[in-house]
């Protein structure tokens, strides 16, 4: 029993389906490999203190490998350093730490890149129509939201975008609201943006629930046909919305894969003492049924086959 | 013990009531007897346990030991609702009013007047107008100079608040009225009004238990005087045959009840 490797997984929250899937993937892999999986999560996105406590508790519980999707990529670093000093292998999932060298390894998709892809696609898909953009963002201060938002703008061809700061340089973004990554709140935000500017014809959304909410608002206004929605995640519900024409394109990520790879590495470390290292990109794929030239994409069928969900 | 077997059946009777609060014993084997249609005054020093006694009789406190009989039947009041159902109405010393609510609402709290139509009966819709009118009627009986029945009780003077509590008990009693120092905060005129009211209640056939520190009031109105001392009944006196001074002496313990002549007892 005591020889059973103990592996910890710390997610940002328990509520986001992305992390729920990640946990499922890890659990499945752990069961397969005979490892014991400990899980913990922050109370809200941005709950760094909760994640620090979780790291400490997992070290105390005897975990030799800890996987973490950091809520705050900088503030988590000292706690990670302490765990590593105690001989624990730490793997960052989904979100890189700053500096990236603070962890042993990173299994992730590049969120900036995910944004970039939908931006590029949207640019082509819009053709020479003048874009009037609304952004359904995430809680101010959350890096994921900034990365995706700025990646989208960069991909769309807006100049002067840096990956780290929420930039409001482009006047074509007429409305930028916090959707909390939530369907109901995304809907509210979209309604208000439409009231502000009815000419909106392109909507960037932080994730697919927000996209579904935005679509609901557009539909209520009778505009769902004229407005393009792009999103990030690639969950099954999201891909089905791509198939249904609700979402124009979405960048698909692979949380199950990240988690499974992490568990494998952890079990390996327990058995052989060999750590993994470096950055493994688990990849992003643009999922759309309306491919455009110059942007590599997969269709909805591929998306559904690889989506993280039932 | 000076308890006597009366000829008429007792309306209320209590035997050996005990109530302890941590270290303090508020009632220490208290007996109690109330005869039909009488005004029974309960007197005693501060902290003698008078309020505790009547709280037990009105269901506000469940005694640790002892029994209570109503019309000779053993009763177990678990809450004031039980006592109310038996038609026992009480004015508590700390008044038990809802200060943010109006006078009319306080008068009818817990037995509001409903509109007669079936919809209203089912949803228990208030007849505000009737409640207001009835409130005016009840309060007029006491001649308190109160402007409006829709004034919150917290805007009333101390005595006016007491008037509200007294009017409430008199209006609804069907069996026994208990009043814990109903005239304490009242002016001379208002105090006399309440004494009149108590007499009226008695004349309508209901017995009244009156706790009071006001000896002139007690001697003016009481048929019998229950003297409470250190958590139990010390004696029951006949105000017609004993002086105020002797009564106070018994109450304070300066005079032993045994030293009294038989006609002084009741």
């Amino acid at each position, binding site marked *: 029993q005591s020889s059973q490797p103990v592996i910890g997984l710390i997610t940002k929250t328990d509520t986001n389906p992305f992390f729920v899937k990640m946990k499922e993937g890890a659990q499945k892999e752990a069961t397969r490999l005979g490892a014991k999986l400990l899980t913990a999560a922050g109370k809200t996105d941005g709950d760094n203190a909760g994640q620090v406590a979780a790291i400490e508790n997992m070290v105390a519980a005897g975990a030799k490998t800890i996987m973490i999707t950091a809520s705050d990529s900088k503030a988590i670093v000292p706690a990670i350093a302490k765990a590593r000093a105690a001989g624990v292998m730490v793997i960052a999932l989904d979100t890189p730490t700053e500096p990236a060298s603070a962890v042993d390894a990173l299994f992730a998709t590049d969120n900036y890149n995910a944004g970039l892809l939908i931006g590029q696609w949207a640019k082509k898909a819009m053709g020479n129509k003048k874009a009037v953009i609304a952004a359904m963002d995430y809680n101010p201060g959350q890096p994921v939201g900034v990365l995706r938002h700025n990646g989208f703008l960069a991909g769309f061809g807006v100049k002067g975008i840096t990956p780290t700061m929420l930039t409001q340089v482009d006047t074509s973004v007429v409305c930028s609201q916090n959707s909390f990554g939530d369907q109901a709140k995304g809907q509210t935000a979209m309604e208000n943006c439409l009231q502000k500017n009815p000419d909106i014809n392109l909507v960037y959304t932080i994730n697919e629930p927000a996209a579904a909410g935005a679509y609901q608002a557009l539909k209520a206004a009778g505009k769902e046909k004229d407005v393009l929605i792009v999103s990030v995640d690639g969950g099954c519900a999201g891909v089905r919305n791509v198939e249904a024409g609700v979402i124009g394109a979405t960048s698909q990520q692979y949380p199950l894969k990240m988690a499974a790879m992490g568990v494998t590495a952890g079990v390996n470390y327990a058995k052989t003492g060999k750590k993994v290292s470096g950055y493994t990109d688990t990849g992003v794929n643009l999922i759309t049924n309306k491919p455009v030239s110059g942007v590599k994409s997969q269709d909805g069928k591929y998306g559904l086959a690889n989506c993280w969900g039932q | 013990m000076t308890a006597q077997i009366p000829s008429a059946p007792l309306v209320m009777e209590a035997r050996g009531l005990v109530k302890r609060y941590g270290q303090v014993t508020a009632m220490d084997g208290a007996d109690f007897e109330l005869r039909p249609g009488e005004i029974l005054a309960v007197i005693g020093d501060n902290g003698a346990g008078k309020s505790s006694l009547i709280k037990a009789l009105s269901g506000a406190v469940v005694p640790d030991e002892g029994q209570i009989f109503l019309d000779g039947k053993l009763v177990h009041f678990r809450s004031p609702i039980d006592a109310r159902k038996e038609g026992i109405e009480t004015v508590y010393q700390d008044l038990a009013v809802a200060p*943010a609510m109006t006078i009319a609402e306080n008068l009818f709290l817990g037995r509001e007047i409903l509109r007669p139509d079936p919809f209203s009966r089912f949803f228990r819709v*208030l007849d505000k107008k009737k409640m207001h009118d009835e409130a005016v009627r009840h309060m007029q009986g006491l001649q308190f100079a109160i402007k409006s029945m829709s004034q919150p009780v917290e805007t009333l003077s101390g005595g006016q608040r007491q008037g509200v509590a007294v009017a409430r008990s008199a209006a609804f009693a069907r069996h026994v009225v208990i009043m814990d120092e109903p005239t304490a905060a009242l002016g001379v005129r208002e105090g006399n009004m309440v004494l009149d009211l108590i007499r009226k209640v008695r004349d309508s056939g209901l017995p009244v238990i009156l706790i009071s520190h006001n000896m002139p009031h007690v001697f003016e109105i009481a048929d019998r005087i229950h003297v409470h001392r250190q958590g139990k009944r010390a004696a029951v006196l006949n105000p017609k045959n004993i002086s105020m001074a002797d009564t106070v002496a018994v109450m304070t313990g300066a005079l032993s009840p045994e030293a009294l002549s038989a006609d002084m007892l009741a």
Partner: protein
Amino acid sequence: MTSPPISEKGRMGFRAPSLTTLGPLIALLLACIFFATQSDRFLTSQTLSLVLSQISFVAVIAIGQTLVILTAGIDLSCGFIMALGSIVMTKFAVDYGVPPFLAILCGLAVTTAIGALNGLLITRLRLPPFIATLGMLGIVQAITLIYSNSQTVSGLPNTLNFLGSTFKILGTPFTYGAVLMLLLFGVAWFFLTRTAPGRHVYAVGNNPEAARLSGIPTTKLLISVYAIAGLLYGIAALILVGRVGAGDPNAGQTENLESITAVVLGGTSLFGGRGNVLGTLLGAVIVGVFRVGLTLAGVNSIYQVLVTGILIILAVATDQFSRRKA
């Protein structure tokens, strides 16, 4: 400084009771004038429709919260009870093929039962409402996420979406959910001001001992209040489902603070026994107007947080000033 009125515990020295809804109304008017100067799209019937349908489910939760707060309680679990309700309704209808109408009833039954459980914990185990509903918050959230597997339930039959559909008044579409919300405020107002149990709610919050001594069955009343609140959260869930077009396990995270805010903005005292459910409606509308108005004014979302904070303080300060003059 004027002296507080004769007061039990003199609480009003610090928080005067709102017996009118005048204060919040003035605040709302001032806010509207301000936003009208910021955007010419603000003063339209469209904005009104938006505000009403956006606040509809929080406002219905806030009705329940008003009842609870009037009894000197508090309900932190309201939002998650709504989320669970939305999941039960939609999962029953979509996954188990229960007829939509029955599925709705099941959802309402679940939320009402949880509300009643809150009431039982508070009255029978004598837990402070804060603790009972805080514990329930965690329990209900976990159950919701486990039961739904954190997955949104979509593909709903029309019956479940009904409250999100619209009808037109003078060309502006309004949702049935918003109408139901207004209706429920009317019912709650009637209940609280015109019926005996409604007045008992105030009495229990104002002086629980007096209520008990007056023969009000306080325990039964409190359990009923929490159960009715639960039912209202269930109705809020139905409105939410109609609005969003899906069952949302992640809903409800901010609704406890939002509903309490609406109640307090509306002038109801957190100490119980004083307040007005129409004030709550105003409180909810104020928050909704701030949100729409600030977006129309083009305020960056982070500055919206800032301005909303300032406006909340100003709104209640206006209220206090208007009352001090009166």
